[in-house]
């Protein structure tokens, strides 16, 4: 039984690898589906903004409020903007964005492609001469890869604004002083790796969602299962990628 689970796990990993390879092959071949890419970008990026912004704002506010007592204990209340900005920009905003998108976009892609697969729309597309991989999958994966970083940047900004409000609940930190302290603390070593890793988060979310949707079977039941597993695996992958990214930046001494 155990060996069978391992077999399934390994074969699925291999499948995902082959799927990724196929994506790179198809995506960079000419005849680009540009308008479809824009459409997907709109739905994935623009439509996710309110959700991401609200989450990021709340996280910024909450992290600030929660960090205060510890800093007050050390008499380092003035360090609140510095500490909050580093933790938000380096870790919280990118990961929260990726997780929210894994939930919203990953499940959406999984369900959409899964139902297309189950209702044999994909097969019909292939018969009609359109490359379904190019049209459906390449555009979606590229859209997530490009949109999640932008959502991440906006989440950074919104969460830092939440942090500003959070610091002003008990203390008084002027608008100028807050941003001055934030940018005084942040370095390229904080910002650049955190932006770069959101590209990988986006790519992982897109590729897992598409893989699960594209390979769904067993009728309508399979649609739900593929949507579910797309969310689970992409969320897990976000954390694994985050771990790798942090270790690499640490090794490169970009901290």
């Amino acid at each position, binding site marked *: 039984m155990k060996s069978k689970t391992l077999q399934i796990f390994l074969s699925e990993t291999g499948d995902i690898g082959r799927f990724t390879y196929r994506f790179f092959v198809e995506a960079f071949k000419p005849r680009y589906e540009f*308008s479809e890419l*824009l*459409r997907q*970008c*709109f739905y994935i*990026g*623009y439509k996710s*903004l309110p959700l991401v912004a609200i989450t990021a704002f709340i996280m910024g506010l909450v992290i600030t409020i929660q960090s205060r007592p510890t800093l007050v204990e050390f008499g380092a209340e003035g360090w609140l903007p510095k500490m909050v900005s580093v933790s938000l920009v380096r870790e919280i905003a990118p990961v929260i964005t990726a997780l929210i998108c894994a939930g919203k976009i990953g499940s959406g892609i999984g369900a959409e492609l899964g139902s297309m697969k189950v209702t044999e729309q994909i097969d019909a597309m292939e018969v009609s001469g359109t490359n379904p991989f190019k049209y459906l999958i390449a555009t979606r994966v590229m859209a997530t890869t490009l949109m999640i*970083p*932008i*959502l991440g*940047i*906006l989440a*950074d*900004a919104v969460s830092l604004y939440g942090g500003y409000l959070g610091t002003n609940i008990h203390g008084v930190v002027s608008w100028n002083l807050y941003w001055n302290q934030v*940018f*005084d603390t*942040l*370095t*390229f070593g904080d*910002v*650049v790796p955190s*932006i770069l890793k959101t590209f990988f988060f986006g790519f992982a979310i897109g590729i897992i969602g598409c893989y699960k949707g594209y390979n769904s079977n067993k009728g309508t039941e399979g649609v739900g299962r593929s949507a579910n597993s797309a969310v689970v695996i992409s969320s897990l992958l976000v954390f694994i990628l985050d771990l790798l990214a942090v270790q690499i930046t640490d090794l490169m001494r970009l901290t």
Partner: protein
Amino acid sequence: MATVNFRNMRLGAFIIIGTALLVTALYLIGNKQNLFGSTVRISAQFHNVNGLMRGNNVRFGGIDVGTVESVEIISDTSVNVVMVIEKNIQQFIKKNAIASVGTDGLMGNKLVNINSSVEDSPTVEEGDVLKSLKPIEMDEMVRTLNVTNENIKVISGNLRTITDKINSKNSLWSVLMDTVVAENVKSSLVNIRLMSNHAVSITGDLKGITYGMKNGKGSIGALITDTTLTSRINQTIVKLEMFSDTAAIISGDISGLVKDLKQGKGSMGVLLNDTTLVHNLNTSIKSIESAAGNFDQNMEALKYSWPFKKYYNKQKKTNSKK
């Protein structure tokens, strides 16, 4: 198609805002680290940099003006620190400024402080090497603190015994606590103040007097300042000496004379010592008195007698004319 356009516009705005935020953030961070804008490189050599790192701040007059670009060992006793300073700060940093490694707060990051010297000097230029100050080492500080603590321990022990002694009765403290003594001290202080006031006025007077004396005013002044007077005084003294000598001789003679007189020697002695003579003298003086009275009467009578009448009238007239 219009909806697609509108959708793309919104997507465009979304992407532009996102990238603009990223670019702004990166620019602001870069600005803080002096990656943009013109800069000047200067360096300083330290014996010990206490963990100064690339990217640490450089402060001039307490303001962040640049960052540390590199820290490298150049020999067994010196470390070269290259600093990147903002170009518009360059004019304020002189060649004789002193660089020192410090700490931001007690536990904060290391930084380089550049402090100006008092003397004037030309402004610093690209590639100049500043003089450096030995940084404060935490170890050394703690070691010194340890010695200080030992000393404080001994001192506080001594202080304790001293305060114990003061607190005990029959000591200075009881005197200090006595209110009568305090009152006395207060009144004597008042007296001292009065006295000193008087002393002040007296010295003022004295000053005036001495000033006058110096300038030859007043008799004492004249005496002191007149030089001819002293010679005269000398002469006078010589004469006085002579006088006193003769006076001594005279007094010697007088004393001899008085002795003789007392013993009834000589006519004067006889006269003084003889009591009968005194009686005789009394009677003779009485008879002289009566004789004089008679003579007065005679003279009155003579006034009105013919030969002398004319003369007296004439004398009366001259007296009344006056």
